[in-house]
Structures are given as structure tokens and as C-alpha cells.
């Protein structure tokens, strides 16, 4: 099952659901946790790249949700509001780490003073066949994600892993649609370069189809 299909079970009436949350109903809170725990953990994990950091981020996120739900006025959807909190929590964690670690993620386009690229993509990894193995692929993807800047990483995670629409992403991040599209475009460009070897293996099939359709 793809991530999009796992998705969300829809709460029938969001307004009624929010009402129950605002009066402190046990059941509503439990439903909230049941619906959002896994997606929020997933987002935090993909953004932070570390299980225990993600775990902490999830707890902080829910604490803020529980505190803030009383004053939630429904100006945006509940889902996007929740994602917004989750992302800002992840950002806080990452900023904290940046302060104490000595390096920041390096962009693939960074050029050193002498003109050479700071990041060399060298295909020194495993053979093409084993690259196709799921686990290795996931590792590589997470590594590629970790190398993106925060904004780009969030855009790709929300769109391609969590399946949020452009509008939902714009709402969750407080950005214009145009900015969302350009961030996504840029992030995907970077991911394509970093994952070149995996994508070659993956795209063999579609290329064969195109090959045949050209009548050769």
C-alpha cells in the first residue's frame, strides 16, 4: 500500500470533531492521536533523519496541539494546522542541533573558493543490482533528503511522501502557491541528481515502453 492510500481515515464532520476536542473529550483526543501519530512521526523522521529526535518532536507537537486546540478557530483546516505545528517543531529541533553541531547541510550547488564543487557525487556505492534492494534504496533516499536544505526537504516530504496537495502545503507552510511550486521544483532537481543511480535502475521499465512506442 502506498503512503497515499494509507492516508487518513476521514473524520466525518471536522467542525464537530474540533468541538469535542475543545471541550476536552477523552475519546476525541484518542481519535486525534490515532489519526495523526503515525503521519506526524513519519514527517518528523523524514525531516530530522533520526528516530529518537523524531519521537521527541512528536511529543512536543502533540503537546502544542493539545494546548492550542482550545483557541483553534478553523481559519485553516485541522490537518494543515497540525502539519504546520509538526514542521515548526522539527525546525526547532534542527536549529538546536545546528547550534551544537559544527556543520550544516551542504547544498549540491555550493562552490568552493577555488571554483571546484564542494560536493562531489561519485558512484562509489554498491552495484546497480543491489542498489535496487529496498532497504539500501531507503537508506540512500533518506541520505539524499538529509542533504537538502530544510525548506526543500519539507516541500518534498509533504508532497511526495505525505501526499499533501499544493494548496495544503501552502497553507501549512504559510507560503504562496508559486513559492511552493518553485521549492518543489528545486528540491526534486536536487533529489534527482543525488539519486541518479537509483533512478536509472528504477526507470529502466518506462524507458523500454517509450522505446517500443517509437516503433523501433
Amino acid at each position: 500500500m502506498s503512503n497515499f492510500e494509507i492516508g487518513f481515515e476521514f473524520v466525518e464532520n471536522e467542525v464537530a470533531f474540533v468541538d469535542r476536542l475543545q471541550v476536552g473529550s477523552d475519546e476525541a483526543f484518542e481519535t486525534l492521536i490515532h489519526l495523526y501519530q503515525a503521519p506526524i512521526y513519519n514527517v518528523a523522521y523524514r525531516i530530522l533523519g533520526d528516530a529518537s529526535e523524531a519521537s521527541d518532536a512528536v511529543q512536543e507537537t502533540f503537546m502544542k496541539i493539545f494546548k492550542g486546540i482550545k483557541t483553534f478557530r478553523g481559519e485553516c483546516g485541522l490537518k494543515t494546522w497540525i502539519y504546520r505545528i509538526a514542521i515548526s517543531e522539527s525546525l526547532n529541533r534542527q536549529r538546536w542541533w545546528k547550534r551544537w553541531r559544527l556543520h550544516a547541510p551542504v547544498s549540491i550547488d555550493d562552490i568552493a573558493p577555488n571554483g571546484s564543487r564542494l560536493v562531489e557525487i561519485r558512484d562509489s556505492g554498491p552495484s546497480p543490482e543491489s542498489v535496487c534492494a529496498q532497504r539500501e534504496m531507503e537508506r540512500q533516499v533518506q541520505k539524499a533528503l538529509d542533504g537538502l536544505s530544510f525548506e526543500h526537504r519539507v516541500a518534498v516530504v509533504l508532497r511526495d511522501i505525505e501526499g499533501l496537495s499544493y494548496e495544503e502545503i501552502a497553507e501549512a507552510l504559510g507560503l504562496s502557491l508559486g513559492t511552493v511550486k518553485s521549492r518543489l521544483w528545486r528540491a526534486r532537481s536536487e533529489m534527482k541528481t543525488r539519486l541518479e543511480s537509483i533512478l536509472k535502475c528504477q526507470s529502466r521499465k518506462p524507458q523500454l515502453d517509450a522505446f517500443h512506442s517509437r516503433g523501433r
Partner: protein
Amino acid sequence: MECKKVLKLLDEYVDDSLSWQEAESIERHLASCSGCAGEFNELKSLQQVMRSLSRREAPEGLDLRLKILASKYTGEWIPAGAINRLRDSLQPLAIPAVSGVVLTCVFFIPLLSIFFTGANLNASDADIPSGLFTEPRPQLLYPSQIVQWENFQKVKEPITLEAEVRQDGTVRNYTVLKGPSDPATLRSLDQFLYFEVRIDPATLFGRPTPGKVTLSLSFYPTINEKIDVIG
């Protein structure tokens, strides 16, 4: 449509957010332009790769922690189900437990050993007059402690453990000295010690300080026919 425009719209096409007219003209272009078709394939492959990432499993215990966190905001710290069971169990008639097992924990108070680890102390124990030092003391948050054991574990033997207590009264970590220490019991102890217990911290010169406390826990399961009430 020319290549430059197609490449610009390719992401939105892949994300299904174009009008059907724009989508159609892109498709027509892709059918006859191998360069753009290649770009499209790459983008599509990236999308497939991202979508195929398995959902990470949240670590065990996170679910429980969130529920306990939630209970603080719903105004009750004890799950509603357990409160009803408490009410039932306090009546003089024997009433079958609704479901699961309700256990009452009784604290046997302190301590066989005290050890303080205040950072500002260089002197050994002997130099500190005992009158200025008080031990950590566990306190029940409510008159009787009700713990709902989600895995219905029937713990029959008492457990003796040693807990390190921070200066704010929360448990930093603990070791089981005597009694069961299987993973399920430890999980339940985690929940109990880290989230449901407050201990008056040790004090030194009137200020809270980290300390250690030894606790004994006895468990009294309520069974269908008989109600044991420790109040």
C-alpha cells in the same frame, strides 16, 4: 507547446494539478520529444521511489506517552474507564470488573539507602550533618493510585527497585533489585515511574537535590468474584 514551457510545467503535470487542456498538450509533446520524455521518466521514477518509502514505525511506548499527555489536557489524569472501575470497586457489593485488570499500587516507604549527587558538593557524606539533609519521599498523586495495565499483566510478586530522583521530583531512571524484570513489566513500570509518580526530592540545606530512593511495590489484582480495596 515548446520544450521550455513543457519542462517548466512538468512537475505540475506529474502532480496532476494542470487543467486537462494543458495536460493534453503536454502529453502530445512528450509523445514526440524524447528529450522531454526522458525528463518526465526521471521525475516519475523519483516520485515512485519517494512513494515507495515505507512508513516508519513509531517507537513502542510513544502511543502510550501521547495518551498520558492527552489525559492531562482533558482535565483528568486517570483514564475515564479506570475511574468508573474505582467507583464500582468502592461499593460494598462484589461487582465484577468491567474488563481488564485494575491494579492498586501501594507504596512502602523509603529507603534503605540514600545517595546524593549534588554537583556543588565536594565533601564526603560524613561531613554533612544529617539534620540538614532530608531523603526523597515518594508521594501518591491521588489518595489511591490506580494504574491501568494495558497488557493485562498479572504481577503477583512484589517488586523492589531503586530509583534515581531528580531535583524536580521526577524519576531519572531506575533499577529493579528484586522481582520480575521482563520487558512487559518494565514497560508498565516505565509508565508508572516516569509519568504517574511524583517524589518529594531530597533536600540539602533546604534546597532540592538529586537523590536515590528504594521502593517496594505490591500489586493487588481485582478479580471478578472478589474486590480488594486498598484505600
